[in-house]
């Protein structure tokens, strides 16, 4: 039996160094792009639930559809949908970066930063393209 504190399963809190406090931590391309992937992914629930409502209304009949469609295509609905397209393209590119990382590629800091910058530029370009096409 190993003595306490010598196996990984022992809970040892107190003497460990704390991770950097976000409020005094210098923003970096890597951290900011990662946080944005999390924010966009979770914020997409709003547009997703609006789309579910739209489908359920369409299946329910013309009157229910008119209500849901009116909301989704209102100025507020348009704003949510357009921002969500931006969030969706950004999150998709972030997921692509994760898959590339998982394959052992582009893990160097400079390449991760380049990928972060490309995610931000490409997501805006893809959003503009989407808004123009649709």
């Amino acid at each position, binding site marked *: *039996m*190993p003595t306490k504190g010598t*196996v*990984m*399963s022992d809970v040892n809190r107190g003497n460990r160094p704390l991770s950097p406090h976000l409020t005094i931590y210098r923003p970096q391309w890597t951290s900011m792009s990662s946080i944005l992937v*999390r924010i966009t*992914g*979770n914020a*997409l*629930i709003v547009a*997703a*639930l609006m*789309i*579910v409502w*739209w*489908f*359920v209304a*369409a*299946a*329910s009949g*013309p009157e229910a*559809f*008119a209500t849901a*469609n009116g909301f*989704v*295509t209102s100025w507020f609905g348009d704003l949510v*949908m357009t921002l969500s*397209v931006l969030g*969706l393209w950004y999150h*998709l590119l972030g*997921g*692509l970066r*994760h*898959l590339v990382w*998982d394959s052992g590629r582009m893990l160097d800091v400079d390449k991760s930063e380049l990928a972060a910058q490309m995610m931000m530029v490409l997501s805006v370009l893809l959003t503009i393209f*989407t808004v123009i*096409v*649709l």
Partner: protein
Amino acid sequence: MAFLTDRKRASGMGSAKTGTEHHWQMMVTSVALLVLTPLFIFTFGAILGSSYEEVIAYYQRPFPAVVAILTMLVGFFHYRLGVQTLIEDYVHGFARKAAIIGMICLSYAAAAFAIFAIVRIAL
């Protein structure tokens, strides 16, 4: 005399849960959504804003309907995994369990409503 091995004592604590399966499911759904998301954006976006009759006729076609069904199914499963990670990072104690259970139920309910609706329109 210790009856438990060190591995067994660690199992279930901290990160020693089902991280591998979670990560693998995230990878599979990510790859699927890499294809599904653009297809959904452009099929759903193309019909959004049309009349009721046009929408019903559109989603009676196999391709837009199956793209929408798969996107809702895989998308909400992907969300269910992602939101669990979010909750695990920021919420602690009983609230963590409650939030994870609540969001998993919301994800599956949303997927079920969407898929039922699309199938009903299509058939």
